[in-house]
């Protein structure tokens, strides 16, 4: 189980790095991240809201989210990243389209949403 936690922390680190440099990440890295899974947790642990742990494990990401419009509006982690069974470090962009469909349809080809709107802070274009 210790190994699982290490994997979990590693995945969080990857996610944090990805959030910070998504704009420069190449496709290969991106695919690798998208395929990453959240480390296994017990059913009990899965009842813990994501933010409850990530507040401490990835405090910068948590703070970016908390201060963002998503944070104010209580758009929660699972809405973009899924839950444990369908967890994605790098969200599928169609989850953005659930609320931002017009922007999604008109976005520049080859660009992902967070290439221009930094992940978790979601401020205006970079």
């Amino acid at each position, binding site marked *: 189980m210790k190994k699982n936690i290490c994997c979990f922390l590693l995945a969080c680190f990857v996610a944090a790095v990805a959030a910070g440099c998504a704009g420069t990440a190449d496709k290969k890295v991106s695919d690798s991240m998208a395929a990453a899974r959240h480390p296994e947790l017990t059913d*009990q642990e899965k009842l813990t809201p994501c933010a409850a742990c990530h507040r401490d494990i990835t405090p910068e990401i948590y703070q970016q989210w908390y201060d963002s419009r998503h944070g104010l509006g209580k*758009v929660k982690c699972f809405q973009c990243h899924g839950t444990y069974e369908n967890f994605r470090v790098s969200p599928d962009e169609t989850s953005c389209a659930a609320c931002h469909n017009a922007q999604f349809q008109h976005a520049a080809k080859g660009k992902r949403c967070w290439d221009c709107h930094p992940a978790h802070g979601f401020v205006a274009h970079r």
Partner: protein
Amino acid sequence: MGLSRREFIKRTAALTAASYVGMNLPLKEENRAQASDVDGWHRGVCRLCGTGCRVELGVKGGKAVALRGVTGSRTNMGYLCMKGMLFYRLMGHPERLTKPLYRASKKDSFKEISWDEALDIASREFARAVRKYGNDSVAYYGSGQALTEETYLFQKVMRAGLQTNNVEGNPRLCMASAVGGYITSFGADEPIGSYANIEKAKCFFIIGSNTAEAHPVLFRRIMRRKLDHKDEVKVINADPRVSPTSRIADMHLQFMPGTDLALLHSMAWVIIDEGLTDREFTEKYAVFRVGKDKKQVDFDTYKKFLDDYTPEKASRICGGNITPDKIRTVARWFAKSGGTVSLWTMGINQRKRGVWANNLIHNLHIITGQLCKPGADSLSLTGQPNACGGVREGGGLCHILPAHRLVKKDKLRHQVEDLWGVPRGRIPPKPGYHTMAMFTAVNQGKIKAMWVNCTSPAQSLPNCDLYNKGLAREDFFLVVTDIFPTRTTEYANLILPTAFHFEKTGVYGCTERRSQLTRKAVNAPGDAKPEVWIVREWAKRLSRDLNDPVIATTVKPFDGLEEDYELPEAIWNEYTQKLTRGRDNDLSGATYRVLSRMDDGVQWPAPTEEFALQGGTVIKFVKGYDPLATKHSKDENPYQFYGPAHPDRKLWVWLRPHKGPEEMPDSEYPFYLSTGRVIDHWHTSSMTGRIIELMRSNPYAYVEINPADAQRLGIKPGDMVEVESRRGSNLLPAKVYEGPVKGMVFVYWYDQAESRMINKVTKDAYDPGSKEPEFKICACRIRRVSGPRPLKPFLVQMKG
């Protein structure tokens, strides 16, 4: 960054107080299809809160696989909350009710039966009760989540068929006080303005509403307005509990529960004292009234009445963080903004004096002229998707007939009888039992058969253990129509499986007088059927069993129609073309043809298709915007308050004295208890609890305790705490934070677990005018029982 497993478990234990035993929360591969994979998108409206978000359902291979917002919609501008994104999972959920289930005795197990058998039994039992105990021994208890066509047809069969006004619904528990407020202040039910005012407002006065969690998409609009105009726009949040809504507030007014009437009067006092009233508006359009006999008084009398609520006096009544300076500041913001929108929900409505609290908010808008103009409105937010459209407008309460007609008015009752083609005198002149009286009558054995549709009173009534004794009676026959097992199906004799949203066709009418059509896009599972089909077929059997051809007359116009579109359209046509035409909620232009073409439906009044195709009426009572204001104009004034309840065509400013709650804390029960929603769950969680992300996000109810109280009582986060009132108790994990004001605890009400159903503890006192219960305030005591204990989420499952 490092976190040992021990620390991880310690933290999660503190937060969840739980170890977890398996639970059926399926997340199948087919439910994870991405939006880009769909065969097509089907337009409709969200199934959950009363905002009326326009959505599109993605369907692939005949199955629902995704939801997204409609960008062009004036309700949500494309945004959805997590519930709105995920409710498609409920279509085809493995725990859906798919077969009619019956048991003669509540001690027996349920057995699957055919629809023919089920409808025969439902008819036989209602007919037996009517023959033996009279027409008022049967009742219908419906829902603000039922489609308008469903509520309309149920009440038609009950009133004109079974000749009883025992027609009620759960909106009595949430918005009846708002109805009373609008009628007594403005002369007509439902808001004057629209959400469109949010983008024009300079001040938001949010009182008794955790908008961020209960109406997340509207909150998003308010938040955007505030963040984009930080200095120009003020947000006032008034609530005994600091909530996520408070995060955007310039000032949070944290008063002690039940003291807000004094706060509102005090704001009025400041506005008058500092000369901030709109004298021209007030002189032209308002009068001042007091007492049961609605005695008219002058402005000076009102001013003198307010002297009991100077900021100094009111701050002493309100307690909490309220100071005279704060009252003065918010009163100035409110009056001088150039556009103030007030928003409230259950913190104002679910009160012993809920109507009065509504009146006092309206008072502020009337005396400052903050009505009928861009950026200004007194906007009661509705909690359910069709409490306004179906129940308030469709005749779903015991005292009202369709299109805002009062049962007790002979002329209006006879209008309805004539329009329905039934003999005059068929609808009884006396209103039926209101909700709390209805369930009291069940307890007393006066009601022998009841139909509960799309709601769960066994969990949602205040002091529910008392009323569940009645539901458990063997001489009481209960039919429940629903999509999942609930606490109420546990008391049923007959459970009828119904089609869910997008599995049938019909209209929802949201907070801002807006009606929107949702067309069937996927098939219901198993033998589940639309309610309109169920009622029609039941009525035909009632006519046979009671040998009463008039009952069959009530559904004759709909006989033989295909159930997925033709039938609901015919019912909608009868309701809108016959019943609403010429009334203040005229929807005769909002035909299915028009509604199908609109991005976001139609706001009434909309008397013609041509007008409806422009979206309908954005602001009521304003000539040039509201066709009825032009039609009913009596003078040169731009505003025409033609509401049916005010023959003087005036807005009424009320002199209502401050009154506290029914039950105050005392030495035995020293805390205030209040209850409310979380963003992840809807009502009794029978739906949201079955969506894995939502259940995990909030797996069970907590009791929120102020840190000062927790420290004094030795309660730590995650400790198990007993919350006990004179009526019952809960055992809940503690959440300790600066949310509730000191001396108050707060509990979420969605949890179905026996030990965490907070309505066992709440009080069933109710407003004497609106008959809405005071869920929001009662007295309780709390004590630490133990440290964290194993807990698991709970949902009622079908047995036997």
